[in-house]
């Protein structure tokens, strides 16, 4: 039943060092004189030395702004060094023959050095073994097509097979991947069922929501965690705020669909600042051995 690869490949498809050196992808722009060593904070306009930013978990130490992290950066932050063993890499097809989709995939692959919008494998977090999956917003908005759906599903199946907890860090803007149409929608069912089977096996699933976790990703595996944590101010919801505003013609509350709003309305267990995320995850893993 399990489709996870049996012979671990010697190669992985991530280049953390490279991604890192390439600088910060979101929430910042190249610094003065286009110096790639520096990044300008989109919130307070401060110039920050990239290495400094990396050390500070991509949080601006001037204004506290959370830069968006790539999956690779997130992996470096959360996983113990040299412990990550990626799953067999999968790539998208074009089941609807959607015009322009293959080109878009290639473009995102080149930009992110990922095969699709997810980085997933076995890892250790402060010594605790787990399946760690991270959605990368930089890959078509971190949307879930067949590859993300399949990899998430394999993640839970791998967890069942190896009796490991699963940690998924979500951050998919639109949720579903429009270009895969109904196949994308069906990944919601597939992944939710994978969570269900995993839970019935008595194992622990920790869902971590980062900015933004919306649509089909939120409405499937991301909101089904035994425990759900979120980063401060992360956008969390089903319908996009623009659609809600257009449909209801009402003024949205200022904190609408933020992590703080989700906490207040009982949807998540807690908000954890980025610098404490690794310690918090490992603590929760330690409660569920």
């Amino acid at each position: 039943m399990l489709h996870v690869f049996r012979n671990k490949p010697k190669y992985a498809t991530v280049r953390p060092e490279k991604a890192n050196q390439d600088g910060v992808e979101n929430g910042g722009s190249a610094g003065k004189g286009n110096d790639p060593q520096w990044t300008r904070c989109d919130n307070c306009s401060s110039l920050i030395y990239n290495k400094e930013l990396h050390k500070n978990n991509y949080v601006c130490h001037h204004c506290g702004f959370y830069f968006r992290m790539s999956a690779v950066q997130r992996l470096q932050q959360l996983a113990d060094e040299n412990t990550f063993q990626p799953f067999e890499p999968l790539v998208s097809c074009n089941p609807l023959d959607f015009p322009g989709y293959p080109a878009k995939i290639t473009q995102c692959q080149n930009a992110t050095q990922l095969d699709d919008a997810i980085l997933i494998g076995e890892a250790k977090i402060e010594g605790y073994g787990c399946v760690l999956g991270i959605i990368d917003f930089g890959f078509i908005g971190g949307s879930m097509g067949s590859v993300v759906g399949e990899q998430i599903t394999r993640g839970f199946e791998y967890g069942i097979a190896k009796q490991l907890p699963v940690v998924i860090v979500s951050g998919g803007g639109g949720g579903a991947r429009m270009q895969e149409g109904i196949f994308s929608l069906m990944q919601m069912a597939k992944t939710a069922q994978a969570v269900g089977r995993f839970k019935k096996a008595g194992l622990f699933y920790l869902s971590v929501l980062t900015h933004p976790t919306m649509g089909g990703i939120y409405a499937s595996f991301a909101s089904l965690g035994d425990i759900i944590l979120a980063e401060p101010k992360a956008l969390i919801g089903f319908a996009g705020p623009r659609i809600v505003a257009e449909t209801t013609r009402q003024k949205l509350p200022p904190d609408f669909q933020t992590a703080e709003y989700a906490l207040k309305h009982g949807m998540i267990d807690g908000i954890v600042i980025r610098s404490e995320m690794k310690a918090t995850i490992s603590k929760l893993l330690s409660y569920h051995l």
Partner: protein
Amino acid sequence: MPTVFEWEKPLVELEEKINELRNFIFEQGIDFKDELNDLERKADKLRKEIYERLTPWQRVRMARHPDRPTTLDYIKLVFDDFFELHGDRRFGDDHAIVGGIAVLDGEPVTVIGPQKGRDTKENITRNFGLPHPEGYRKALRLMQQAERFHRPIITLIDVVGAYPGIEAEQRGQGLVIAECIEQMSFLKVPIVCIITGEGGSGGALAIGVGDRILMMEHAWYSVISPEMCATILWKDANRASEAAELLKLTSTDLLKFGIIDDVITEPLGGAHRDHEGTGRQLKAFLRRHLSEIKRIPPDELVKHRLERFRKIGEYQAKKLNEMQVDM
């Protein structure tokens, strides 16, 4: 005034002509039987041609025809009795989703489905058939109740999507959809889902996880509505008809993809032109599929249901030469 689509116009005009002629003949007492039959055969052919050539966008519009049977219409057409049950036992009773116990061939079943209104007043009560979280929680409650009593579940799906409102988001629209999908997947009773009209995204899937997934001929089912897709692609909702082509959302496409199990043919001209005939058709398909899955033991049923969705997805393993990137 009934809504007449532009592609229906020649047909409607021909039908009117035939009727006029029939009345004339009847009044005059002339025997024009053969000529009339010829005309009717021509009309049939025209009907067939028109409806075989419908574009995806035309079919989306068929699915939205204001006279198309609603969930409560189908319940009345198909079942012998219906006792509606209300409320999520937590917050409210969402009139955009109806549910209850119905009787099919003498046996109780649980029937659930989003409910659109027919006039403005009813549309306001029904929130245009757009459910809030309490609607999905009611659905889930009734499905779990059905499981307790070994009642088959039939969902009739006709929904553009879950309501994108402030309060709906506040009360966990995304979360409740995920919960419905997860819970429904493991229910140990036969489940038949029928997309009768619109099957819009997560709001449809939330009550769309079954052992048999059927679709009315002119229903649509997609991850996103054509309008929203057009808005994203071209920032122009008016290009929905092009988007409808891209999305492959018709019953024909979805049967080919293996996403649905069967297409329930509609009377020529669509469900809205013949409620009774549509109801009979739906009932026949429902009966057949339900009787097949009712024979399967509950654990097998769940196992098959999970396998069905497990294998959906189009991807390929990356070739090794593409993987020569060192970590």
